C-alpha cells in the first residue's frame, strides 16, 4: 500500500514537473517574429523560435542556429555557417535557403517591424546548403546583435508561405518547443519538440505562459504554487519573498534604460520653455537630481544608477562622461546665470507606477534647486502620441533596450532617428554614431561613443537616470536559469530539481 501511494505521489510529482508555468507581466502581441512588437512577446519566442545567434550573460555573441560567422575583408559581407540536422516544427529542413527566405521576409513583408533593423542588408546569398552570405550596403556592426533577436529568428518557409498573413496565429519555428495553442489574454501553450537539435538541454514536456498583469496577483500565483516562475516581480515585493525559502529571486541589470527626454527642438514648445531653450537650465536640472536616491526611493534599490544609454558596467559605457554628483548650489547658480531662478515645466509621465514614482521623486528633488515641476500623468498610448508630435516639455520614458548600443542610441539621438522625440540634431553626433555603426572593432567603436557621450552629456536631450533590474522570482527547485541582460527566459537547461 505504502509503495502504491509512493508511486502515485511520484508520478503526480513528475507529471507536475514536466510542465513549466511562467507568469508574464503582459499579454504578448502577435507571435510572428517579423511582425512582433513587444518585449514580452520575445520571452515567448525564447521557447519557440531559435535564432541565428544568441547572447551570453556578458552580452557576447554566441552561436545558435549559425555555428560560426565571419566578416569579409571590406566588412560588407557576413558569412554564416549553419548548424546541420536542424528541422522546423513541421519537419522541414533548416538550411541556407531557409535563412535567405526568412531575412527576405523580414525585409519585405508588409508591416514588418524588422525592416529598419535589417536596412543595410542588400541581399542574401546561398553559398551552399549550410553557408549563407549576407551582403550589406555598408559595414554594419550591430548586425550580429540584431541577429540575436527577432530578426535572427527563423520560421519554416513552407508554413509561412501557406499561412500568409495569419502565420502569427500558428507559428512554426525551430526552437525547443513547438506551438500548441493560444487563448488570447489567458495562455500560450508550447510542447517539447522531440527533434530539437539540442534536446538534451530540454527537461520539460510543456511550457505554459500565462499573462497576469497585476504584479500582486502574479506573485500570489507563484506563492500558491500555480506558477513556477514569474518575470518582473515588483521591487516592493522583494523583501517579503526573500525570507521565504521556497522561492528564489534572480536579478539582472537590463540593457535598456529609464530617463527623461527633454523637448530641445522637436516643436516650438522647446523655445518657449527655459528647459528646452537653455542648456544651462538642463544642466541645473540634472544637478538637482540624485540618481542613487531616485533608485533607492522609486525603485526600492532594484536598479543601477546611470547617465548613458548603456549601463556603467557595459563595455561601451563612455568613461569620459561619468555620472554627475548632485549639486544643488551649483544648480541654483546656473539658473541665476540663465536668468530664470524659478523655471517651471511640465513633466509628462505614463501612468505606470514606476514612472509615477520617478516623476514624484524628481519633482521633489528639483524643487530644492528652484524648479517648479508639474507632473502630467498621461495614458501610455496618448503620451507616445504627444511625444511624437512634440507636444511636451519633458517626458519620463523607459526603453527595453537592445544588445548593441546602437539600438539604444541611433533612433533616439540621430537627427533622423525615428524615436528622436527630443528633436536633438548635432551633425558631429550623427557622424560619430554612423562611424560606430560601420566600425567592427569594439575599442574603436567605444571611442566614437565617447564623442557622442561628450555631446549628449553636455546638451542633455535625454537625462538618463537608471537601468532597472529584471526581477525574476521562481520556485527554489527550478534550476538552470541563465541571467542574460536582454531579460529573455532561455529554456535550455531549465529543470526542476
Amino acid at each position, binding site marked *: 500500500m505504502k509503495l502504491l501511494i509512493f508511486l502515485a505521489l511520484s508520478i503526480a510529482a513528475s507529471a507536475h514537473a514536466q510542465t513549466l508555468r511562467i507568469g508574464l507581466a503582459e*499579454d504578448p*502581441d*502577435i507571435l510572428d517574429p517579423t511582425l*512582433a*512588437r*513587444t*518585449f514580452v512577446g520575445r520571452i515567448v519566442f525564447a521557447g519557440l523560435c531559435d535564432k541565428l545567434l544568441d547572447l551570453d550573460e556578458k552580452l557576447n555573441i554566441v552561436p545558435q542556429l549559425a555555428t560560426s560567422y565571419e566578416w569579409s575583408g571590406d566588412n560588407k559581407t557576413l558569412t554564416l555557417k549553419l548548424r546541420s540536422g536542424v528541422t522546423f516544427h513541421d519537419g522541414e529542413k533548416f538550411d541556407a535557403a531557409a535563412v535567405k527566405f526568412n531575412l527576405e521576409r523580414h525585409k519585405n513583408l*508588409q*508591416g*514588418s*517591424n524588422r*525592416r*529598419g533593423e535589417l536596412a543595410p542588408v542588400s541581399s542574401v546569398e546561398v553559398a551552399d546548403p549550410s553557408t549563407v552570405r549576407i551582403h550589406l550596403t555598408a559595414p554594419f556592426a550591430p548586425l550580429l546583435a540584431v541577429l540575436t533577436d527577432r530578426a535572427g529568428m527563423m520560421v519554416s518557409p513552407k508554413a509561412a508561405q501557406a499561412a500568409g*498573413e*495569419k502565420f*502569427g*496565429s500558428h507559428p512554426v519555428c525551430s526552437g525547443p518547443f513547438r506551438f500548441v495553442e*493560444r*487563448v*488570447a*489574454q*489567458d*495562455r500560450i501553450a508550447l510542447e517539447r519538440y522531440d527533434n530539437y537539435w539540442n534536446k538534451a538541454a530540454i527537461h520539460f514536456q510543456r511550457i505554459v505562459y*500565462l*499573462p*497576469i*498583469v*497585476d504584479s*500582486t*496577483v502574479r506573485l*500570489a*500565483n507563484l*506563492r*500558491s*504554487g*500555480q506558477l513556477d516562475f514569474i518575470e518582473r516581480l515588483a521591487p516592493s515585493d522583494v523583501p517579503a519573498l526573500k525570507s521565504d525559502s521556497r522561492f528564489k529571486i534572480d536579478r539582472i541589470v537590463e540593457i535598456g534604460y529609464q530617463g527623461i527626454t527633454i523637448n530641445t527642438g522637436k516643436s516650438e514648445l522647446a523655445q518657449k520653455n527655459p528647459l528646452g531653450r537653455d542648456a544651462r537650465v538642463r544642466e541645473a536640472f540634472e544637478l538637482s537630481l540624485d540618481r542613487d536616491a531616485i533608485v533607492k526611493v522609486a525603485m526600492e534599490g532594484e536598479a543601477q544608477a546611470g547617465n548613458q544609454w548603456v549601463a556603467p558596467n557595459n563595455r561601451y559605457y563612455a568613461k569620459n562622461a561619468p555620472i554627475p554628483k548632485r549639486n544643488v548650489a551649483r544648480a541654483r547658480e546656473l539658473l541665476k546665470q540663465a536668468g530664470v531662478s524659478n523655471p517651471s515645466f511640465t513633466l509628462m509621465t505614463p501612468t505606470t507606477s514606476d514612472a509615477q514614482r520617478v516623476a514624484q521623486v524628481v519633482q521633489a528633488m528639483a524643487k530644492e534647486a528652484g524648479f517648479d515641476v508639474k507632473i502630467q500623468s498621461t*495614458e*501610455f*498610448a*496618448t503620451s*507616445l*502620441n504627444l511625444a*511624437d508630435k512634440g507636444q511636451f516639455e519633458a517626458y519620463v520614458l523607459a*526603453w*527595453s533596450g537592445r544588445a548593441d548600443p546602437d539600438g539604444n542610441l541611433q*533612433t533616439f539621438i540621430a537627427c533622423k532617428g*525615428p*524615436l528622436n522625440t527630443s528633436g536633438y540634431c548635432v551633425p558631429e553626433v550623427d557622424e560619430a554614431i554612423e562611424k560606430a555603426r560601420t566600425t567592427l572593432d569594439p575599442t574603436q567603436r567605444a571611442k566614437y561613443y565617447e564623442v557622442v557621450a561628450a555631446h549628449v552629456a553636455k546638451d542633455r536631450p535625454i537625462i538618463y537616470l537608471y537601468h532597472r533590474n529584471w526581477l525574476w522570482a521562481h520556485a527554489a527547485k527550478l534550476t538552470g536559469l541563465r541571467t542574460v541582460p536582454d531579460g529573455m527566459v532561455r529554456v535550455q537547461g531549465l529543470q526542476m530539481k
Partner: protein
Amino acid sequence: MLNYLLQRLAMLVPTLFFVSILIFGLQQLLPGDPAIALAGEDRDPNVVAFLRAKFHLDEPLPMRYWYWLSGVLHGDLGDSVRIQKPVTELILEKLPVTLQLAAMAIVIALVIGITAGVISAVKKDTGWDYAANVFALWGLSTPNFWLGILLILLFAVQLGWLPASGYVSPFEDLRANLAAMIMPAFVLGNAFAAVLMRHTRSAMLQVLSSDYVRTARAKGLDERVVVLKHALRNALIPVITLGALGLGELLGGAVLTEQVFTIPGFGKLIVDAVFNRDYSVVQGVVLFTATVYIMLNLLADLAYYLVNPRMRH
C-alpha cells in the same frame, strides 16, 4: 402580445443604429494615434504608415464608419490588429467565460440578496435587519479589486484551497472550472447582492403592509405561505427588472473582476483593447454588449408581462 413584441422589435433597429454611431464616435475621441500605439516600442515610421493605410485611419471619418458598418451588416466585425484574430471569434471565445461568471455572480447575488432582503423585511427593526443592512452597506462600499485581492491572499496563498487566478474550461475540468470561478463570481455578485437586498427589502415591506396580505393572514394562512407565496411573488417584480438590468451591467462590469483574477473574458478583452487601441475589438465588443443589454431590457419587459397578469390588459 404579438403586436407588443413586434413593436418593441421594430424599435431595436433605430436604437442599434444610434448605438453604433455612438460607439464609433466616442472611440474617435480617444486621444492617441492607434497606428502609433499598435506599432509597438520601435514605432517604425514605415510600420506606422502601413498600419494607418491598412485600417483606413488616413480616410475621412464617415468613410471609416461606413467600412465598419458595412462589415458589421455582413456579420464581419473585423480582425484584432494586435493578435490577428477575427473579432467575432474572440467574442465567441470570451463570451461563454463572462456569461458563466455573470451567471454565477447573479445566482450568488439573487440567493444572498433576496434571502437577506426577505429576512430583513420580515424581521424589521431586529438584529437580523440591522445585520442585513450592515452587509448591504459593506457589499456596496467594498471595491471589487480590493476584495478580490484579499480573497486571493486568504484562499489561495494562505489556505491554498482555491487557485489564485486563471481560467479552466468547464468542458476540460468542471471541478477546476468551479474552483477558479467561485471567488470572482462572489466578488462580482457581492456588490450586486447588496443592491438586490435593499430593493427586495423595500418592496417586501410595501407588499407586507398591503390589504391582500392582511386578508391572507386573516384567512389563517401559515406565515411562511403568506411571505413566500403571496408577498414575495409580488415583490419580486422590481427585483426581476433589476436582475435583468444587472446581468447586462455585470457583463460590462466584470471588467475589474476579470482583471484582478485574470479571467480571459469580455471585460479583460475590452480593457486590453482600449489600452492597445485595438479599435475593431473595442467597437465589436461594445456593440455586442450594447445589443445584449438592449435585448435583456426587452426580455425584462416580456417577463413583466408574464409575471404580472394586470399588464396583459
